[in-house]
């Protein structure tokens, strides 16, 4: 290496076209999966425009028909259009999961921030409760709650949200404690800023990246729980159908027409996969930023 290069680094030669193409922002894993998720949400929201059939419209004459131009995913045992049923089912799944994520977020951050701010006995009590809740396998707890409170869209969202809250609380608490140990927080306290204001103005915005990761994890968890409950018949009840309900119906006709079960199963699988990837990538990113 010539010694006159003071930086010691090899300077890049003038960029060729290929080089310039290479420097264009490359599609990241995060971008792709987040984009696909967004697309899915839009598709579900626009279901009435996209689906050419009413998901409830029965036509026994064409029951169990295969994929065709008219019925992309075929039809079910009552001759209902499966594509429309999966789209509309997704809306229910989205509604419940979204609601659950929201509940978990509000409950969990309040829980965690409160524990972090109060410390001492309150902290201990709140966190031990969270530990106890986390010791119960989520699905079992969901079975208990739903069988106690009954299955309705609202109950499902609430119960699942509460189930996801303890992990969120744990995370929120550790983020809050970390932020509170930083200089800006001490400075703000020294200047007499009020705690509640600090919480909303400083802690919450700084916790957003990690809360976003948690939200993605929660969304995946909520989908699994909702699908599980609906699958055993403790979730969305027919004639309404979420992806879980559809999977249950497909499962019952597995030997007649296995394609029935494939579509809701794929919908669940792919959505959870995308959510996991988003959570992973976001997590890696916010960790990288911290180091």
């Amino acid at each position, binding site marked *: *290496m010539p*010694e*006159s290069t*003071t*930086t*010691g*680094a*090899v300077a*890049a030669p003038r960029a060729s076209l290929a080089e310039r193409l290479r420097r264009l922002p490359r599609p990241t894993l995060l971008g792709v999966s987040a984009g696909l998720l967004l697309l899915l949400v839009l598709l579900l929201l626009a279901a009435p425009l996209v689906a050419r059939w009413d998901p409830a419209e029965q036509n026994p004459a064409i029951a169990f028909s295969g994929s065709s131009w008219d019925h992309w995913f075929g039809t079910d045992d009552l001759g209902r259009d499966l594509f429309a049923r999966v789209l509309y089912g997704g809306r229910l799944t989205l509604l419940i999961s979204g609601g659950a994520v929201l509940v978990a977020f509000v409950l969990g951050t309040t829980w965690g921030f409160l524990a972090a701010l109060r410390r001492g006995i309150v902290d201990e009590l709140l966190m031990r409760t969270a530990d106890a809740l986390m010791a119960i396998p989520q699905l079992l707890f969901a079975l208990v709650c739903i069988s106690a409170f009954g299955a309705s869209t609202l109950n499902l969202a609430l119960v699942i949200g509460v189930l996801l809250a303890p992990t969120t609380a744990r995370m929120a608490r550790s983020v809050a404690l970390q932020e509170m140990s930083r200089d800006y927080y001490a400075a703000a306290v020294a200047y007499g800023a009020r705690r509640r204001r600090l919480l909303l103005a400083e802690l919450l915005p700084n916790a957003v990246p990690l809360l976003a990761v948690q939200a993605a994890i929660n969304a995946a968890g909520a989908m699994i729980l909702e699908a599980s409950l609906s699958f055993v018949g403790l979730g969305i009840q027919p004639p309404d159908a979420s992806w879980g309900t559809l999977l249950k119906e497909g499962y019952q006709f597995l030997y007649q027409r296995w394609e029935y079960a494939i579509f809701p199963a794929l919908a669940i699988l792919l959505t959870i996969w995308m959510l996991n990837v988003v959570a992973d990538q976001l997590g890696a990113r916010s960790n990288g930023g911290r180091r």
Partner: protein
Amino acid sequence: MSPALAALAVEGLTVVADAGRGRELPIVRDVSFTVARGARMGLVGESGSGKTMTAMAVMGLLRRPLRITAGSVRLGETDLRALRGRALGRVRGGRIGMIYQDPMRSLNPLHKVGDQISETIRLHTSLSRREAGARVLELLADVGIADAAAKARAYPHELSGGMRQRVMIAMALSADPEVLLCDEPTTALDVTTQRRIVELLVRISREREVAMVMITHDLGVAAGFCDEIAVMYAGRLVEQAPVRELYAAPRHPYTEALLGAACDLTLPLERPIPTIAGQPPLPGQLASGCSFHPRCPYAQEVCVEQRPPLETAADGGGRVACHFALTREEVRHG
């Protein structure tokens, strides 16, 4: 001394760190030295000067992003850089051993120290498990561990710092190597233990005729141990000389600064340098010309423009890389 006789001969060794996107940071630059059988050489310099990386490169233990880009490492007749896999494994630990910094983390926390030593023995000799066990006890006793049988059954965390260092030494010696690289073997030890370890190493090099390279930032330790010293700065050797000569009359301003010898009466400078001003440079931000010029009290324009080559000193006792080595020598001698 001709390289053919040397136990260890390093020639033009160059190590870089890949900094991504094709950028390479120089870590070790064109380092050459030889160590004869039974000789003890010190490799000194501030932290970050490339001493440890030189030793790691010799052992072939560099990890990404570090890699050797040029140079050769010869162990007697063997070219170490040409070896791979099993062949390399036979030489490492067998003919060349190393004592690492931080023995606590360099010993496997889940294996008994005796097992860690006998693993080396069994890799490089045909001794049975039982024979190797006996040899472990001999070695432990040899490096001054009383109650060797009990200590062999101990886990690293159960031993004191000095004891762990002795275990490391026993492990490095277990297959009778020709060359031993010692990386800061006495840091983190109290002064008494430091002295004992140094004495132990000296004794070993005499008794077994092992060629040793001691890497240290402590010139006091180096003085008590070595017969020759090589000084590194920013990845390069800047001076190499027999220990007495180097201490009596350092030829490179950096060595001089390290020794705190700038207040020598014969020097033309008015002000003494109690410590070395400024920070050692980072690999990516090396100064042009002589890397030491930003911190050098004697720096002239030529030091900024041209890198001084490492050349045999005028009086033939060593090598130095400084434009003004000769001038300063003349001044010194009147």
